[in-house]
């Protein structure tokens, strides 16, 4: 982990409200793991005052050139400022931070993405491909227009779901997962789930996994101040009985956590 300055290589709106930004980082920035995030200063001045945490959608390295990619939605002040940053602008970020996805050897990784939650899973899928590991990629969005990066997914079986049925399975990616699981013949000993998306979806998926004893890692989100474990501002509520009421710090023990111990009902 390091504080490094970075410069905007490109920053485009890919579909309404969703942007992809590429940031050039110096060699001082360590190679990140899929699921790790950076704490980005989106602009100078006090609006916004705090950095914003973003999962990495990808990491590129060519010779001495290093760059990270972030896929983000404009939901408020910080992301609005970020969306205005032009090519060449200098920003700075702290990272890589947190704990990423940890696929186990000899298990089929089932990646389940909801909406813009696809970002860290695209990063993971590329890593799996490099490792020549097969995987399943389930991706749900409201409509075909909001699907991003599908064509990028290679070396794995992709199944899509859209609320409006404009492509793939018509319905939620949760239902798609249920169908695929039952048809796949996989067992908790042969496969595991990696997911990211709206907390409502993650909640449903973790219930599904718990009921069947499937190992399931989810990437969480929530407001953060320091992002390095100092301020304790990012508590993750755990289910009663788990770890005696302690609140793990999302920035330090997450953002990727064992979904089945998270008390989703108490997570905003």
């Amino acid at each position, binding site marked *: 982990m390091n504080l490094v300055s970075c410069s905007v290589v490109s920053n485009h709106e890919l579909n309404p409200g969703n942007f992809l930004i590429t940031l050039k980082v110096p060699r001082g920035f360590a190679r990140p793991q899929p699921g790790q995030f950076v704490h980005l200063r989106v602009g100078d001045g*006090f609006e916004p005052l705090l*950095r914003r945490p973003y999962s990495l959608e990808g990491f590129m390295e060519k010779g001495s050139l290093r760059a990270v990619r972030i896929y983000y939605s404009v939901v408020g002040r910080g992301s609005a400022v970020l969306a205005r940053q032009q090519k060449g602008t200098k920003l700075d970020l702290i990272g890589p931070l947190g704990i990423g996805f940890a696929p186990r050897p000899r298990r089929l990784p089932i990646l389940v993405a909801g909406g813009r939650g696809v970002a860290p899973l695209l990063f993971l899928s590329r890593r799996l491909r490099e490792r020549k590991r097969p995987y399943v990629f389930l991706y749900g969005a409201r409509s075909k227009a909001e699907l991003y990066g599908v064509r990028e997914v290679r070396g794995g079986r992709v199944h899509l779901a859209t609320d409006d049925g404009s492509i793939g399975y018509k319905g939620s990616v949760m239902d798609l997962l249920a169908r695929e699981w039952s048809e796949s013949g996989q067992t908790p000993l042969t496969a595991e789930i990696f997911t990211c998306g709206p907390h409502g979806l993650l909640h449903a998926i973790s219930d599904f996994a718990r009921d069947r004893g499937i190992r399931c890692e989810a990437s969480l989100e929530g407001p953060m101040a320091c992002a390095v474990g100092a301020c304790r501002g990012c508590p993750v509520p755990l289910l009663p009985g788990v770890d005696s009421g302690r609140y793990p710090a999302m920035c330090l023990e997450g953002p990727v956590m064992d979904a089945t111990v998270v008390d989703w009902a108490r997570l905003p």
Partner: protein
Amino acid sequence: MKPSLEVRIGGLTLRNPVLVASGIIGYGREYERLTDLSRIGGIVTKTVTLRPRAGNPPPRVCETPSGMLNSIGIENPGLSGYLEQKVPILRDLPCAAIVSVEGEDVGEFCELVRGVDGSGAAHAIEVNISCPNVGPHGMRYSTDAGMAREVMSAIRPLTKLPLIAKLTPNVTRIAEIAQACEDCGADAVSLVNTFVGMAVDARTRKPILGTVLGGLSGPAIKPLALAKLWETVQAVDIPVIGMGGIARPMDAVEFLLTGATAVEVGTALFANPSLPEECVDAIEESVRLAAGTTVDDLIGALEVPEGRGVIRAGRAARREPGRHAS
């Protein structure tokens, strides 16, 4: 010739007047890769309570215009956890380690001071009598001069370490609390802790923080923190450590000019981990510009028109009152 930036807080001499505030930097290690602690005066640890605390339910932080609200709930490992896990870390720090403590009653404050004093790792103790209410005690220690007196006089005999009383700004007359602490042997007072605040999500119709109320910090409160500092330095003779909204290097100079002997950097560290070092540079530069030789040439050097802006509290009461009505 390089001006001297050394300042003294009771028996403790700080390399320079820039500290990092409690609750911001943990116990130092969390930021060792981000902030050069060897260039600043010291850090104040996250507040330690007698028993471990899990802290408050989420969400605990929320950004507001030029500020942030927090309701961490003093999540900390408790005194025993401090002694086992944190003392070794503090021993290795390249700057002064000021340990913040808070008890739920006088007895707990005493146990904590004894424990921290015994641990050896602390250069000073910041007594957090200012935290917005934890449990049934509400804000009583911080908002009542009598209670402050009770705590300070009980712990003073228990340690030779400098005692810094940290005050809340959520009171009518902060100078009265500061004077009570001075009378009871505090070596310094530090202020401000956060201002009680609240945020609402009009769409969900719910409070944003899990605890509804939280503490406001950041640049938004700087003008309020400077006013509380100004009120306090007029009322006490012990050093006053100023903080509240320091976000640019020159902000630190503003606090020194207003009368602070040292400053603590808080919330803004999250955005700019190098800010403490930049504050040190700005202070040194300001001493130079004023053709001064030491930082004492800055402290309290604010030029104020006769009889203006004087706040009538205790010892300052003799002077003329200030006018600043809307």
